[in-house]
């Protein structure tokens, strides 16, 4: 579009800089448009965009940048490509515990190394991706503002009688002779159009029929919705607006919900699998989950909440059976079924001390895996617990150590005292699990003592396992209503703009000659059919196709 200075139309109307079609009569002002005979560029009704000025300042230049649809499309395409790249390898946030600086190179080689170095391993949280979204948001605001206001003004004060060229250069055009008196002819056509729900305006020998103008606002409503959505997303990052925590709750226990005053109890956790009869042949024998359910109770804490030396005072506020698609919800806080851990973990054993020489057994005594009692009296003998290892191993120096805090391979060091033993006592190492006992050769470690004594769990009754743990995702999201409102408005605008079309028909009669031009922002096919049908109503039979302004082959 070239710059043109003379903005005064032949009809005498003074137009703002950048106007393509005269605001009043519709005559093409743009020299390029004027010299052509192709259908007019009717976008935004040929109005000047707000920002178009003959002498832009730096602020105007930035404004014009964001006001351009071309730039907007480029931003969309760049975001799209960035989003694609982000799906090539698994993103960092999908892992719970790993070191990204070595993971990507280790797994994917040099490609992975560069993927990590260029920041694609965390694409969607990166500053440049957020920057792209901010730019799209800016473009949404400025593009819309720049177009909607002038468009509103243009549509609000439309001239009924348009320049002839304006009519003949629409995409739907009819020319012919009006039979009978002009006023009556126009009235008849107007009646037809009114039946098609057009609003008809007439003015000495000219007619303007219009319907569904509201559909023109659809895209802008949609953009407003998107802006609200983006702002709501931003709102979520403010401190205190959202909580995202995980708690693991063993069956029967109550734990504090971090960052809140609530406590949550897991009364019972249930996993159900489909029975073989319910499964198709190919899945028979596989464990296919049917239900994960935590029967949860939520408590409000009124006093002694964060002092671990006291018992908190709890009052029940709600209870709910949480399943995957049905979280517990209370006062904005939601608790979701996230996962569970039902791997058997040793909780306690009840071993007996056997005197191998006499065959006598002492005990049993209860040995908890976590925070066990330190002294045990067994008949004439005493056991003092000196050391415990949850996941026994030997370190590089050959010293006993623990690999983790999970009771995977528990080991206990006791000092055994009693008749026939050293006064200071003799150390005795005990592995409750039979496999560990063999793996770490308990009897060899204990040496001679192993020949006299044995610590042993007499039967499975003496073994206690830790209860199943459920893990719940605790969420609090104050911005959600705004997110839904934004999405709803955006969807509403999209529907308005997509499924209704703004249609206008202009008509002028010049000495018994009819010139009709029709414009729609979408669906010219439907426009032609409607004009043909209206004309048929007053006895003019035309094929819809013949109304197509055939000069539009580009």
């Amino acid at each position, binding site marked *: 579009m070239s710059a043109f200075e003379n903005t005064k139309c032949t009809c005498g109307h003074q137009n703002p800089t950048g106007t393509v079609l005269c605001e009043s009569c519709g005559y093409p002002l743009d020299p390029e448009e004027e010299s052509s005979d192709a259908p007019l560029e009717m976008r935004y009704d040929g109005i000047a965009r707000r920002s178009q000025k003959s002498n832009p300042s730096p602020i105007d230049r930035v404004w014009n940048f964001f006001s351009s*649809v071309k730039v907007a499309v480029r931003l969309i395409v760049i975001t799209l490509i960035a989003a694609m790249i982000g799906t090539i390898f698994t993103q960092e946030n999908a892992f719970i515990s790993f070191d990204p600086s070595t993971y990507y190179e280790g797994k994917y080689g040099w490609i992975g190394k560069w993927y990590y170095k260029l920041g694609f391993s965390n694409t969607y949280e990166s500053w440049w991706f957020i920057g792209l979204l901010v730019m799209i948001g800016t473009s949404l605001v400025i593009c819309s503002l720049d177009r909607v206001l002038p468009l509103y003004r243009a549509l609000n004060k439309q001239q009924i009688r348009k320049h002839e060229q304006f009519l003949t250069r629409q995409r739907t055009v009819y020319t012919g002779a009006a039979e009978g008196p002009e006023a009556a002819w126009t009235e008849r056509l107007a009646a037809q159009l009114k039946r098609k729900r057009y609003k008809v305006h007439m003015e000495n020998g000219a007619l303007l029929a219009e319907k569904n103008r509201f559909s023109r606002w659809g895209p802008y409503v949609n953009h407003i919705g998107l802006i609200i959505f983006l702002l709501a997303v931003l709102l979520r990052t403010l401190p205190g607006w959202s909580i*995202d925590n995980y708690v693991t709750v063993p069956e029967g226990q109550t734990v504090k919900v971090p960052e809140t005053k609530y406590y949550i109890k897991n009364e019972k956790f249930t996993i159900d699998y489909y029975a073989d009869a319910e*499964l198709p042949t*190919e899945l028979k024998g596989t464990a*296919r989950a049917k*239900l994960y359910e935590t029967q949860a109770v939520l408590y409000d804490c009124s006093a002694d909440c964060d002092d671990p030396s006291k018992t908190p005072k709890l009052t029940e506020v709600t209870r709910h059976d949480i399943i995957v698609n049905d979280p517990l919800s209370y006062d904005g806080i939601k608790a979701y079924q996230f996962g569970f851990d039902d791997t058997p973990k040793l909780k306690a054993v009840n071993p007996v001390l056997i005197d191998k020489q006499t065959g006598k057994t002492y005990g049993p005594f209860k040995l908890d895996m976590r925070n066990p009692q330190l002294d045990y009296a067994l008949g004439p003998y005493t056991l003092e617990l000196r050391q415990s290892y949850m996941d026994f191993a030997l370190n590089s120096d050959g010293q006993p150590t623990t*690999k983790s805090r999970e009771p995977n391979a528990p080991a206990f060091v006791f000092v055994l005292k009693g008749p026939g033993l050293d006064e200071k006592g003799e150390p005795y190492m005990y592995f409750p699990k039979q496999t560990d006992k063999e793996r770490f050769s308990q009897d060899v470690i204990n040496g001679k003592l192993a020949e006299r004594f044995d610590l042993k769990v007499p039967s499975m009754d003496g073994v206690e396992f830790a209860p199943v743990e459920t893990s719940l995702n605790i969420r609090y999201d104050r911005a959600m209503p705004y997110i839904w409102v934004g999405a709803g408005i955006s969807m509403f605008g*999209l529907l308005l703009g*997509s499924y209704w079309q703004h249609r206008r028909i202009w008509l002028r009669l010049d000495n018994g000659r009819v010139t009709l031009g029709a414009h729609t922002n979408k669906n010219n096919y439907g426009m032609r059919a409607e004009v043909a049908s209206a004309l048929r109503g007053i006895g003019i039979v035309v094929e819809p196709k013949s109304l197509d302004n055939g000069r539009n082959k580009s």
Partner: protein
Amino acid sequence: MSLLDFSSDAFIVAFFLYCFGFLFYGVAALGKKWSKRSPEEHTKRWGRIAYFVALLGFIAHLTFFFTRWAGGGHIPTSNMYEFMSFLAMAIMAAFIIVDAIYRKPLLGLFTLPLVVIIVAYAAVFPQEVQPLIPALQSYWLKIHVTTAASGEAFFAVGFAAGLMYLLRTVDFTKKDEKSRREQRWVEFTLYVIIVIIAFIGSVFAFRGAGYEASFKQETVTIDDSGVENSTVNTVEYSLPPIFKPYNSQVVTIDSFLGIDKPLFETPHWMHGVDAARKLNTITWSIINGSILYGLLRLVLRRRIGAAIHPLMDGIDEDDIDEISYRAIAIGYPIFMLGALIFAMIWAYIAWSRFWGWDPKEVWALITWLYYTAYLHLRLSRGWHGSKSAWLAVIGFVVVMFTLIGVNLVLVGLHSYAGV
């Protein structure tokens, strides 16, 4: 006969009716030169027959869908077989709607083969009704999947019309640089479609012949503490192994054309889920597709695009351009509603967050952004005609990648929608 068996039969009936519908559309387009009637009347008559047959197919498809729903106890959109057949059904519905607006018989000539291919592709996947895992037990399964698929179905019709536009307008006799480039790309698009047909054909041919091969693959992983763990899995092939799994031994192998051992080993760096089998399948598809393409070229004695182009004579290209755009414009809001908004609502209920940058979510967003760009380019930048048609064709590739590619190539939370 149980409801589910009846349902499977209805599926097969639908498939064949679609095939016949396609055939009759072919007669409508091809036969106008030899017919005694005037070309318009011939096209109209056979177009109507074809439409009627296709409609019967759609009714059979609906029967399949609802009987399977009744028999299986949940809406059949929960695995790849069910989803793909639902998508095909939605494409038919979209076609019926668009056709009702525009009444262009030859649109069926392009939509029906697409439906046939997708139905056949669906049948590649296991067809048993699988009971729902907890994550899918929600009424949002019905709402989200059906609306998303309906939106995508309109994009598919937009693709069919876009391809039709290109075959109508790309002049295969011209020799200038721009025309040659367009010819090459149209031909490539057709080649890709033939490769997909060859893929489905190969799977069914070898399945029909009962071909089997299996391997024992040893995978060595080093855990955090530096301990080497090796696991041995059995990998089953249903196509003769051109590539065997990396570091694997043959357990059993049926001989095919005298080949009774694998020709190559899959390189070690391909270690996705079932990477070796996928590589093998892709290789087979490309080989068979190329053979099929070569045969077609021999029979037609010219490029396929050049052979189809004359059939399109007399079709108004502006109308097809409009159809392609309208289909997309109708589908876009439905897609946004189903694949983004309903998806966010369900994700919020089931996974506690409305958006988590899961690959499937990202690809739905990519699809949406893509069609957003399409609409802006068309409405505000005046991209009509062949530019718009190319965008519609590429757009459908994006849609198919979102639906299938993400499950086959990438991993994520939607993995249950896979094979």
